[in-house]
Each structure stands twice: as structure tokens, then as C-alpha cells.
């Protein structure tokens, strides 16, 4: 049974397999169900009890072992799609989402790939080919050069020459890197070897490739990206920008839309450049073109992410466009049904990434059991979470637990809403960055909107430290809790009363002794 919206589509499917885990799998599985389709999850053994497995219509166990055996196991995932009757595969982000060979293998198996063509992924996935394609299409790029290093990394001569030409400080990137892995800043020539070795190791560990790319490090720049949407009928539009300037070691921390630094004219020229970039690779689906925006309004192409982004919800909040639903429509071969002049900006949205990490110890990933996990709710608050109370946080996967997204009429109101929502986000048993996010969002630089990508890395961490804890109150609470015998490890909201009549707690219409028919 195909849902009504898919009638007349050339590539119809009634079942979608989501080849991912965590919050993005939950997000996409929910969208799939909402679209009237069957939602299939895949999982590895440690994820047996995960939220994404629970909400799927059917979940398929992948082989045990390292990621290459399960979430990166192309054959097993395609086989899971076949056995469950899935007519389409959505890759989420990370994992296989930007693997051209997987996109090709899926299409070759007569399964609809919910993503761009393999060729688009290939061109944009390699920083060097992406760059030359952008240059030939007239999209502005940062001064930089490619270097291929011999397998053993013994001769850094060519790298040193390229580095001198580009100029210091520079950024050293593994060609196949991403997400801050395999990427190193080199401030002076004598650090070149050390940083190269670290970058090469990280890139090999995470991606299995070793070509290197050097580019000028623009200090004091902002990271601004444009969401694009393209269909198979030749329509290509942009959905405005997201500002992801608040980063730590090239990992985004807080993202917002619209950008406080983007004027209407920059938005329009950057949007045009993004559409140009997408068209240059015959892009189809949802994608993101990342730019560095310098303080004088100049911008340079950074890379294109040929998939859904972690921070896509801020765009959804301000434009009202459900990007995952659009991905499904476009994959089925329908026209996207929205034109550039229908894209508007309503209010301001901010996303904060909730990580299991300890800001007071160099942001080390933290592990443990989420004994208490109560996410905030209310008008303009959205939480995309991959975990529940009682879940185990392990070192097996990325430490991002959830995304908190707020939407309000103005940036100031959105910041207040963010702080309030973060205050009401209760996560106990595992150290999280929630407190750090509050400190960052109340920092004068963030409040003023003057954020550059090097803010967190170049500031003294004490500027973001917590206020003095109320020691007397805390130790009194601990002593009282101990005396009251509240010693079960999983406490929290377990005792939430459920109203017999309405089925949920706190219903303002319930009465103590009567229930209405």
C-alpha cells in the first residue's frame, strides 16, 4: 500500500530501511512512519534495547563485532532491506551516508536510495575534486593545495613546499576526513611534521585514507552553511543559512538560523553560490554547502555535505519545511513542490548538541547509565533524542545523546528559551555538556552574535566554567537522600502517576474522584 502523497510517483516504495542508529535513526524512522510508510531499523547487538529499535515497525539484527560488520556492512544492510521488503534506504548522517559505492550498490539492487547520485557524492566527497569542480563552476574557494604523501610518510618535502606556498597558519586535512577528525591547525613550519603525523593517524583510524590537503587557516571567520534541496526534475532551491560558528576543535557545538552575521544581500549571493555548487554536481535531495564567511562579507566554499546534517532542525524550524519528508518525496521521483520565493524565514532557531562529555576534563567522552533523563518540553522546544532514561552510554559510538532545538520570534528570545530549556534538561548518571552549553550560550560573545570559529579554542576555558556550586545545599540533599533510603540506582520519574481516565499524568481536566465519560 502506497500512501496517498506518493500516488503518481515514478519510484514508489511502501517501506523504508533506516541504516543508522541514535537520534538520527529515531528522527528518520518517525518521519517515515508519519509519511504512512513502514519503518525498518537495523541494529547491532549492543543496541538491542535502543530507542530506534523500539520505535521501528521491524528491526533487523546485523552481525556482531566492529562497525564494519554492522552499521558499515553494506551487504548485510542491503540484505536486510531485501528480507524486510524495504523499497528504499535512508542512510541518515555519518556511517554510509556519504559512501558513493554504497549509493551505487543500493541502486544496483533495485532499491531506491534516499540521497544524491553516487557521482555527486564522489565529486564532493573528495576535497580536491570538489574544489576543482567549484573553481570551474565559479564558486569562490579558499587558497589551498593538495599533496599526496608516500605511504610511509617519510618524505614531507612536497608538503612543506605546498605549505609554504599557501602560507601559515594553515589547516592540514586528510582528503577523506570530516567531522574534525584528521584535521589539524599548523601555526608554524616546525610543527608541520608533528601535526601531519597526528592527522594521518586519525584519518586512517576513522576513514582509511591518507591523502593530505593544505589550506590557509582563516582566523576570525564564521562557519555559515546553506541548506539546498534539489529534485530529479531540475528544480534546485536553497532554504537559507545556518550559522555554526560556535565550534570546538572543528566540532559544532551550537548552531542557529538565521545567522546574526548574514545580511539579506549576503544571504542571496551565498544562496545563489550554493545552488550553483549543487547544480555543478547534478545534485538530488537535501544537501548542505558549507562556507567560511570572513568579517568583510567575503565567503569561500568549504565543502558540501551530501546528506542530511545533524543541525537540519534549525532550518526546519525557521522555514517550516520538513526536510526528511522532502527527501522521501524527492526520492520517489516527485517534484519538490516548493519554489524559491515560497521559502521564508520565521523567527530564530538555535540548536545545542547534548554530548556525554566532561567539559571540566578537556571534553573527554563520558560513560555510564542515564539514571535520570528528563528532556524539557514546551512551546518552541524540540528535542531530537536517541536515548531514554535507563540507557547505557558506552564508548562504542559517538557521544552525542540528543539535540535540543528552540524556536522563538527573535534571537534574544531564542537564547532565553535555550537557557531555560537547558536548565530543565535533567541528565544524571552520566556527565554531560549541558552546563557548559548554558555557559557558552550566556557568554558575551554569543549574546552579541560575534562568534568566530576559533572562539572556544582560543578562549580561556575558565570563561565558560560553572558558577560556584551551592555546596551546603548539595551535601544536605545527599545526606537527606541517604537517610530517606532513596538508594535505588535508577530513581527519577518512575513514580509518575498515570491518570486512569486520560492515560497521562498532570491532566488539568481530571478531578480527584470523578471521571467524565
Amino acid at each position, binding site marked *: 500500500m502506497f500512501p496517498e502523497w506518493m500516488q503518481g510517483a515514478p519510484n514508489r516504495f511502501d517501506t523504508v530501511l533506516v541504516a543508522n542508529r541514535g537520534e538520527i535513526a529515531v528522527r528518520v524512522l518517525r518521519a517515515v512512519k508519519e509519511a504512512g510508510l513502514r519503518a525498518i531499523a537495523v541494529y547491532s547487538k549492543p543496541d538491542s534495547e535502543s530507542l530506534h529499535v523500539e520505535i521501528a515497525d521491524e528491526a533487523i539484527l546485523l552481525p556482531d563485532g566492529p562497525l564494519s560488520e554492522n552499521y558499515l556492512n553494506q551487504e548485510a544492510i542491503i540484505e536486510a532491506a531485501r528480507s524486510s521488503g524495504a523499497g528504499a534506504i535512508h542512510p541518515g548522517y555519518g556511517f554510509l551516508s556519504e559512501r558513493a559505492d554504497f549509493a551505487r550498490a543500493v541502486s544496483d539492487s533495485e532499491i531506491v536510495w534516499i540521497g544524491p547520485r553516487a557521482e555527486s557524492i564522489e565529486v564532493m566527497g573528495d576535497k580536491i575534486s570538489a574544489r576543482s569542480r567549484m573553481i570551474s563552476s565559479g564558486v569562490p574557494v579558499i587558497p589551498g593545495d593538495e599533496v599526496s604523501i608516500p605511504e610511509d610518510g617519510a618524505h614531507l618535502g612536497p608538503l612543506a613546499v605546498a605549505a609554504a606556498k599557501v602560507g601559515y597558519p594553515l589547516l592540514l586535512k586528510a582528503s577523506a576526513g570530516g567531522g574534525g577528525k584528521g584535521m589539524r591547525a599548523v601555526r608554524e613550519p616546525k610543527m608541520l611534521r608533528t601535526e601531519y603525523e597526528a592527522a594521518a593517524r586519525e584519518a586512517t583510524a576513522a576513514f582509511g585514507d591518507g591523502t593530505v590537503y593544505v589550506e590557509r587557516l582563516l582566523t576570525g571567520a564564521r562557519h555559515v552553511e546553506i541548506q539546498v534541496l534539489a529534485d530529479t526534475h531540475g528544480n534546485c532551491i536553497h532554504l537559507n543559512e545556518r550559522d555554526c560558528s560556535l565550534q570546538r576543535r572543528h566540532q559544532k557545538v551550537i548552531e542557529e538560523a538565521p545567522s546574526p552575521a548574514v545580511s539579506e544581500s549576503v544571504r542571496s549571493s551565498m544562496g545563489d553560490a550554493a545552488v550553483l555548487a549543487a547544480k555543478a554536481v547534478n545534485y538530488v535531495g537535501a544537501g548542505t554547502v558549507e562556507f567560511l564567511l570572513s568579517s568583510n562579507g567575503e565567503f569561500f566554499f568549504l565543502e558540501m555535505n551530501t546528506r542530511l546534517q545533524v543541525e537540519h532542525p534549525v532550518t526546519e524550524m525557521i522555514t517550516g519545511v520538513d526536510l526528511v519528508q522532502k527527501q522521501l518525496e524527492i526520492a520517489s521521483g516527485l517534484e519538490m513542490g516548493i519554489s524559491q520565493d515560497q521559502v521564508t524565514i520565521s523567527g530564530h532557531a538555535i540548536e545545542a548538541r547534548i554530548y556525554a562529555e566532561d567539559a571540566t*576534563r578537556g571534553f573527554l567522552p563520558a560513560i555510564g*547509565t542515564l539514571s535520570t533523563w528528563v528532556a524539557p518540553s514546551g512551546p518552541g522546544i524540540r528535542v531530537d533524542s536517541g536515548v531514554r532514561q535507563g540507557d547505557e552510554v558506552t564508548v562504542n559510538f559517538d557521544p552525542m545523546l540528543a539535540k535540543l532545538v528552540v524556536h522563538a520570534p527573535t534571537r534574544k528570545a531564542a537564547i532565553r528559551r535555550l537557557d531555560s530549556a537547558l536548565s530543565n534538561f535533567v541528565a544524571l548518571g552520566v556527565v554531560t555538556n549541558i552546563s557548559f552549553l548554558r555557559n557558552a550560550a550566556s557568554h558575551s560573545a554569543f549574546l552579541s552574535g560575534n562568534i568566530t570559529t576559533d572562539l572556544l579554542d582560543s578562549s580561556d576555558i575558565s570563561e565558560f566554567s560553572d558558577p560556584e556550586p551551592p555546596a551546603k545545599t548539595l551535601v*544536605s540533599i545527599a545526606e537527606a537522600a541517604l537517610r530517606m533510603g532513596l538508594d535505588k540506582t535508577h530513581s527519577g520519574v518512575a513514580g509518575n502517576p498515570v491518570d486512569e481516565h486520560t492515560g497521562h499524568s498532570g491532566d488539568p481536566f481530571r478531578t480527584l474522584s470523578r471521571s467524565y465519560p
Partner: protein
Amino acid sequence: MEWSIGDESERYSVVMSNEGEVMSLSNITMDGQEIELPNLQVSSDASSGRLIVEIEGIPKFAHIARVGDDWWIHLDGRAHVVKGYEKGSQKGQDSDSGLTAPMPGTILEVLVKKGQRVREGQTLMVMEAMKMEHKIQAPSNGEVSLIHFQEGDRVDMGSALIELAD
């Protein structure tokens, strides 16, 4: 029980007195010294699993969770860990002359040899955890007295990696 706020060195002892369902703070000491006593009552909000804390007459809710001897407390928008110790247990028992692995992972590089003098802040080892590199650095000047692992070894969280002598 004695308490500390996270890894802070101050130890607190607390006496709570019962008044029916409500407990009132009746004495508090920090490192053995009596300190100023706030007007503070704690009671249980059984239906929600939270505690109601009244400080100088102002009620607040606290979420609590126990993990081992530690209490995780969410109060006023922040999460805290209050660590419990048996009375009189050694102070600073986990402050170290041996350096431990902050995360489970793999040793990538050992940059020092046994017997070598090292400066404060010098990188002694590089380990890989969660696909990221972490540097293990000397907390003070000293001499490397023992190296527990070699390059390529897998280590568990908290494993002693290297030991320094003054």
C-alpha cells in the same frame, strides 16, 4: 558519611534532624570546622521521585540519582555530583602519582623511557579513544619510574599508565 562536591578537596559532615516527613539541617562542618548554618529543609516528593528543598523558605525541586556512594543532584538548572566517603577515610585517595587512562582506548605512542626526567606538562603518552587522540601529560616535574603499557596495547578506563617519582 562525609561528602565532597565533585573532586573538590573539602569534606563536609552533615547532621539532619527529623520532623515527621521533613528533615532539617541542624549541623554542618567543613573539614571539621563548623560553618554557618542555612535554614534548610528537605522532604520527599514521592509522586515525582524528586526532593523538595526549602532554602531560607524558598522551595526548589531537586532530581537525585545514586550511583555507588555518589549522589547525582540536579538543582537550579545544573547537575552536580556529591561524592560520599566513609568517615575518616583517606583524603585525596584518588589523587595520583600514577597517571591513569581517562577512557578505554589504545596506546598510540609512548614518548618517554623509564628513568627519564620529565617536565610538568610534558606529553608522556598518546592514546586513542573514541577515534580522537588524547595526550597523557605529566602533572608535575619528576622521573618516570614505571611504564605499564606499550604502543598498541588496549587499556581500560582508569588503568594506571605510567608512574612518576619526584
